[in-house]
């Protein structure tokens, strides 16, 4: 079975070109808003907070903040990437091309993930200006970054296919993902919660992502790293199944 590499590359390049065209919106604005978090929570408020498990508050929130951007950017990039051609009608070309579902996803999701990985690293770099941090396990850090970006880009792709108007495109990121991320331990350790809420919080999938990611920085975690990793793979599998089902049934892309 030969792959249509030129096709994957075409989609990937097209999507990346869109990123450079909208540089302000796609890169500069998330970096700026995250910097504001560092200033407010890291430098201003953080200086009045005690360390959490031996890590200064400013450093503690870095992994969570990166995850916050990573999730929302992955979803919005990938969902917009596939929603827009559907909306404008240009999807006819992709549908009539000799390109498989796998190759289409590889192009769109690959580009969205690349973009949010770059963004994550850029935020990490920016954080250096405001707080001091260390990365104990850089290899794992990258691993978590890549896996999360891929998984949530796939999730975004599914949302982009499901959405038939702009409102639906934004409702899940806004109403579901953002609250889950804020409540997922970006700004606190879940050990700081009352016992009951510690249990409830374990139903929040984002907790596992942030906890695992933070572990790769400081070696501290709310839940076991292996569990975090397993959860990411579980989401990845779920999203892959969703996409497989979409293409098998033609759901919302072919009549």
């Amino acid at each position: 079975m030969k792959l249509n590499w030129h096709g994957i590359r075409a989609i990937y390049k097209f999507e990346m070109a869109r990123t450079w065209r909208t540089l302000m919106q796609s890169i500069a604005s998330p970096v700026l808003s995250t910097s504001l978090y560092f200033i407010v929570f890291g430098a201003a408020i953080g200086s009045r907070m005690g360390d959490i498990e031996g890590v200064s508050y400013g450093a503690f929130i870095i992994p969570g903040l990166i995850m916050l951007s990573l999730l929302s950017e992955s979803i919005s990039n990938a969902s917009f990437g596939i929603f827009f051609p559907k909306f404008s009608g240009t999807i006819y070309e992709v549908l009539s091309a000799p390109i498989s579902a796998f190759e289409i996803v590889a192009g769109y999701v690959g580009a969205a993930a690349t973009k949010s990985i770059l963004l994550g690293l850029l935020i990490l770099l920016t954080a250096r200006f405001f707080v001091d941090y260390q990365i104990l396990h850089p290899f794992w850090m990258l691993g978590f970054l890549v896996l999360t970006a891929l998984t949530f880009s796939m999730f975004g792709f599914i949302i982009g296919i499901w959405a038939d108007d702009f409102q639906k495109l934004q409702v899940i990121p806004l109403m579901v993902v953002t609250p889950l991320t804020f409540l997922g331990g970006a700004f606190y350790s879940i050990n700081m919660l009352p016992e009951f809420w510690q249990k409830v919080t374990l139903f929040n999938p984002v907790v596992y992502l942030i906890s695992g990611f933070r572990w790769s920085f400081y070696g501290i975690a709310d839940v076991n790293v292996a569990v975090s990793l397993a959860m990411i793979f579980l989401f990845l599998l779920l999203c892959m199944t969703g996409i497989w089902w979409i293409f098998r049934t033609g759901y919302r892309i072919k009549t």
Partner: protein
Amino acid sequence: MNSIISVSDLTKTYSGGFTALKNVNLDIHEGEIFALLGPNGAGKTTLISIICGIVNPSSGSVRADGHDVVRDYRMAREKIGLVPQELCTDSFESVLATVKFSRGLFGKAPDPGYIERLLRQLSLWEKRNSRIMALSGGMKRRLMIAKALSHEPKILFLDEPTAGVDVELRQDMWSMVRELRESGVTVILTTHYIEEAEEMADRVGVINHGRLVLVEDKNTLIKRMGNKELLLHLAEPLERLPESLADLSLELDESGQQMVYRFDIQSGETGIANLLRKLDRAEIEFRDLQTRESSLEDIFVGLVRGEQKENDRAHGAGE
């Protein structure tokens, strides 16, 4: 004749329950220009969309250059280029980038020389660095064609290429299609203009209400369909046609105000001169006259009636 597209027993029922194609069978010959003629809503776009892989068929099958368009979609689609009915492009991309994108999407390695020739041929080379949104409507349409031809397909579909296009552009389009045919590309175009089918096609398929009513050599079809009507508005109403006019294909309408004369545009002798002479002799005066070509709608009505009669006859014989 080698058939490059072969549609068998194709039926499409949309999810709403509407059946847009009913048991369509069609063979397109390699190297021809085929016009699919039919009024709005006939199912032309649906048929093309199924062949190109944009819409799933409900039943039946299509082969393009010998490859099943569902099972061997890669092989089939490589051979096909599509210019859809609607102009839809990415406004922010440049002309060159979008054409390169199309070529890559169809699995072809970059070929700057070919792309340059293509863009020059379509008079878009000067505009290669412009953003698509800065192009005029005519240029956008040519760009859609450039995208469809970017991967050097053997078969090109043009869905209503001249709808809403001015006369000059239409002429350009027609000559371009002829050039393509000369280079060996099979062209299938849809239209609801009978003149366009006449002007362009080698063969014509007529589709109405999801049924392919007939497929015929253009010249044969024009003979069958090429009726024109001459309308005469009479100065004084008539009760009935005078005897002296009875041998002509002439009808008087109910009010007696208007006469309709039917003639064949293809035949050298239309009989109009004769008619006017006879009218003069019968001392019938008219205020105004106009000619009208039988519209596509009339032709369908004619065809469908013809079919019904044949069915009735077949039934009668069976009983």
